[in-house]
């Protein structure tokens, strides 16, 4: 089953995302911020990255940029978790190399449906 790297500084969000994904049979690697994600991305085989945008230390945009320069992440789908109010973040994220986005608040079904679009 594909492995998803779920990045969010909010523990409850991580729990929810992780629980939902694991329930659907995916493996999940959790990270608490961009830095953490980047170091985990280098050690595990990741099929999809799901990242929050607003995070301490290294935010989602910086993470996407950093991932895209890694040879193993050149084509990996990277989805951002954004909010309606953060429209400009989508543009920034896209420019950084994001595949797409999921708008918060979302429910588990929406999350799974979106992920199914990107990975098999």
């Amino acid at each position, binding site marked *: 089953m594909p492995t998803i790297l779920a990045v969010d500084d909010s523990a*409850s*969000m991580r729990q929810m995302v992780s629980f939902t994904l694991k*329930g659907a049979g995916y493996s999940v690697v959790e990270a608490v911020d961009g830095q953490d994600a980047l170091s985990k991305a280098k050690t595990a085989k990741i099929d999809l990255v799901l990242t929050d945008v607003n995070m301490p230390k290294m935010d989602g945009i910086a993470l996407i940029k950093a991932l895209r320069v890694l040879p193993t992440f050149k084509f990996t789908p990277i989805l951002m978790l954004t909010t309606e109010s953060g429209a400009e973040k989508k543009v920034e994220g896209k420019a950084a190399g994001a595949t797409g986005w999921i708008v918060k608040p979302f429910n588990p079904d929406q999350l799974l449906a979106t992920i199914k679009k990107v990975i098999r």
Partner: protein
Amino acid sequence: MSIDISQFLATFYEESFEGLDIMESELLNLDSSSVDDETINNIFRAAHSIKGGSGTFGLKEVSNFTHVLETLLDEMRSGKRKISQPAVELMLTSVDVIREMMKSLQSKLPLDQARINMVHAKLEEMLSGEEPKKSPEQQSATSEAIAPIIKTSNIGTSYKIKFTPKSHLFRTGNDPLRILAELSELGDMEVIANLDKLPHLEKLNPENSYLAWEIMLHGVVEESAIKDVFSWVEDDADITIETVSTSSSNAQDNASALTVDVISESVTQPEVKAASGERDNVNRSSVGQENAVSKTDQSAVRRAAPSDSGSIRVGIDKVDALIDMVGELVITQSMLNQIGEKFTLDKLQKLQDGLVELERHTRELQENVMRIRMLPISFAFNRFPRLVHDIGNQLGKKVELKLSGESTELDKTVMERIGDPLVHLVRNSLDHGIELPEKRRKIGKPETGHVHLNAFHQGGNIIIEITDDGAGIDTDKIRCKAIERGIIGENDNLSKEKTLELIFAPGLSTAEQVSDISGRGVGMDVVRRNINELGGTIEIISEIDVGTTFRVRLPLTLAILDGQLVRVGSETFIVPLVSIIESLQVKAEHVKSIAGDAELYRLRNEYIPVIRLHKTFNIESDSTKLVGGLLVVVEGEGRYGGIFVDELLGQQQVVIKSLESNFKKVEGISGATILGDGTVALIVDTPGLIKLSKLNQHSYSELSELSSALA
């Protein structure tokens, strides 16, 4: 269907309260004259998380309220709005409101809608009142960008879609096949691949996208739905969508053949390979989804409902260390087992080694289990910035709070119970310690007063110091008041330390007038009692016009105590090590008897009461003769006493068992423990014991008379 989101609520509440604390402390840090980007970012991030989470977890009220706050903060963050002091105050109030909302929701209590509405309205007012530069155009522009919807409600329309990805498309992680598959869910589709741009194999860069597609889509579809499919690649491809009156059938024949072409071509492309099964997947995808959904449903049911009982967050390192130790313990245990199975005397050394090992592991395990309950004292310190800010404002005093040693760890229960005494001490420093700005200026001090909260470990204790650079405590005033209240006699000649300690005496309040801040019922005597109940002590160091320091000394945990074992007859007692000053052999010339049968012992320049445990608890002792016997000098609540014992045994850590809950409260005894040999030993309550001593009835005065006669 759906996963029960409420199971994540407990975590969400917990992290939201943390977020609110961060917001509060950062808001207090915020200097409206020079704004630090990082500070405002931290505040924004916390608000943003709370808003996002509350939306996701179905707390609409919170998300609505926080939305306004977030918008305000966003404008401040991007520099569109200036940060004014009233704005900071309003945001602090908003933090309170959100915290109250969360608490109400958590305990399923009704919300204080009136207050919420009021603050909400104020936020809205601020948001619209000081209109930031050119926001309306921007807002409408962005909302258009998010939802570029042209309503063309067609029924059974055909669309002609041209999809020409730019060469970098793969590097965004997007896959044209994914998009085509998603599109195919909307209706019947004919796809023509355009291979014009495809270079010769030798020149082909597998990382680039060369293909384009022309798609005919028939179905009951709104154009917006099609745009949604392409929303992620809007900027990474040229996309045109046209409505067509009827299907143009001559393209249809070519379509299927060419699609196959595309797939075989795309094998050379890295991301598109493995895609040959894609089209089947599309058809199956809805079924697959249902399967997955029912699976998650089951696991949601299996998971037990979260309980609301108090929880602590424990660092993984602590848990790992425990698991490690339990592992070693198990090994030692099995080793001992093996030795025990066929024991012969030549294995004695091995047995002893094993027992030593067992002891070490047990001790380590105990220490580490205790560490689980340890939390950094920042949990108790965190409320002070706000408190100092509010009280300072209330009193018209300028105060700067400094916190240090926040990471010092302390038992959770001790932490919970030290909170209120600390608040009282800090209030006290603000109220009575720090002077008004003009007064400070007059005596040549900086206008802003300083309060410093410091925590650190010392031996087996944690020390918390509350230091202010205020007026200091006027010992003459205390003395007068103490005499007035009959706490000391007029002729009592007390040392400075002893006089300062009088502020802990019941019924003595140094406040000239009882203010709203301190002196509201709870006095310093209660503070000291609370600290003593935790097995701690408090002392004061004060200098007029320089400042005052309260030093609180607390045991790291309540469950374990470092004790000195002493023997009286056949009984073993435990004297808490913290309360022991020294142990000495009684010399005849230092013993003095006073009225009744009270005995005093001269310790340097002071007389201390002698406590005969055998008399207090009515037990047989080896000897009743004081001279030549052993006296353990102890201190409790600022008073000294000498406990007369037969023998000093070892020192050891003991696990405290409550006597009150297992038997009944016994005066002079704070608890019991079980010793290695299985016997029960009582732990003496030093302050209680000193109070019990006969001398107490003679009050301080006689003691101090004697002491001053010595001096």
